[in-house]
């Protein structure tokens, strides 16, 4: 935990125009202390060029939740792939902030993430990802959720496979092997065995599929592949279960490819600095 004052800059990006060679721009700086109080300070900043930045200011897109959460990081990966600027608003689950009335207004089930942009408030990470792709079809990676109905249906099919078949056992294993020890919760060997067996069967199906297709839904990386990143990453990096992927030729190849993506590595960096 960082001691002292944590500054969050909300920097605006403005274009140089011939009419205003040396404009001064006001920028809002949010001052946030460890106790989570906020004070606004205004001071002028010199002109800024229209640089690409994920530190959004007037960026209307907000994601609420800790980047360590698998569902939150699913949305972050999508936003970064799509090159959509966003602001990450921390929610301390250790302090129970996700169950407080203010948060429940955004997400009535008390789960993370919640999402807002200039026209909508949404929850459920896979719904948010689909929405981002539909709202910004021409930005960033345009192949994530194709417009062509057959291609889109193939992505939906494998997104559902992730959601219904991969997520339950992998999520249970991530909890048992990665989080339970840290939370001082006793592990359940029966649950571990049950979910390892389930996951094995799912990955056998993936192995066959990925022998016929470069990525799950087709020849291009899509939302379907992206959706696997959070749980799989914890399984490999924290739970030490990399061999479930590495022991399968095609799944191993697929995992190397998708986990090496720049956007995913940026999400991991966000986690480290959170």
């Amino acid at each position, binding site marked *: 935990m960082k001691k002292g004052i944590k500054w969050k800059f909300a920097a605006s990006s403005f274009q140089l125009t011939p009419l205003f060679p040396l404009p001064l721009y006001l920028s809002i700086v949010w001052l946030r202390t460890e106790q989570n109080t906020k004070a606004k300070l205004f001071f002028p900043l010199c002109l800024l060029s229209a640089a690409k930045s994920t530190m959004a200011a007037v960026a209307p897109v907000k994601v609420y939740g800790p980047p360590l959460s698998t569902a939150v990081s699913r949305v972050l990966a999508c936003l970064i792939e799509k090159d959509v600027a966003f602001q990450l608003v921390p929610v301390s689950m250790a302090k129970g902030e996700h169950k407080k009335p203010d948060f429940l207004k955004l997400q*009535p*089930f008390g789960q993370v993430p919640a999402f807002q942009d200039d*026209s*909508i408030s*949404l*929850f*459920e*990470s*896979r*719904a*948010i990802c*689909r*929405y981002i792709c*539909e*709202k910004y079809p021409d930005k960033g990676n345009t192949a994530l959720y194709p417009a062509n*109905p*057959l291609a*889109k*249906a*193939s992505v*939906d*099919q494998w*997104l*559902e*496979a992730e*959601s*219904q*078949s991969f997520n*339950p056992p992998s999520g249970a294993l991530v909890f048992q092997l990665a989080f339970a020890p840290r939370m001082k919760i006793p592990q359940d060997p029966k649950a571990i065995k049950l979910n390892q067996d389930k996951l094995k069967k*799912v990955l056998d*199906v993936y192995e*066959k*599929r990925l022998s016929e297709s470069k990525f799950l839904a087709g020849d291009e990386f899509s939302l379907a592949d992206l959706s696997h990143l959070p749980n799989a990453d914890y399984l490999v990096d924290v739970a030490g279960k990399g061999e479930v992927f590495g022991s399968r030729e095609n799944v191993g190849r697929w995992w190397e490819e998708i986990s090496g993506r720049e956007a995913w590595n940026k999400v991991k960096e966000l986690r480290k600095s959170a």
Partner: protein
Amino acid sequence: CRAQPFGSVPVIQDGDYTLYESRAIIRYYSEKYKSQGTDLLGKTIEERGLVEQWLEVESQNFHPPIYNLTLHVMFASVLGFPADELLIRESEEKLGKVLDVYEERLSKSKYLAGDFFSLADLSHLPFTQYLVGPIGKEYMIRSRKHVSAWWDDISSRPSWKKVLQL
């Protein structure tokens, strides 16, 4: 099973094209036939976002506990394993909490995604039909005023009645 590598149903074939996962199939047909029948995906990107949100809620929050109830109350004896009473109680409790959120939502909105019937509502029909019927827990719907009215509305749609007759 060649058509469905996970060995489950349903699978559809549309010409040469095979598709599985029921929620992928319903999304596909809703888009393909968008200009006929009921618009199940809403009319704008924002409405679509809300449909997707509540479809995911059904998939992630509603489905797991009600699936456990279905399996253990309806099918345990048929499939030859002992019904797990603890799991039944826990699933009923979880489902109750989900339905409390639905009650709040449906007190402000006629259907889940807004004032229009959508895929999100439709997706709840099959298992809720089991809940009020053979699972024997109709009280969970009836004790919640807005959920009850919503259930009466969506389950009396001619399309659902046709499904029940199949």
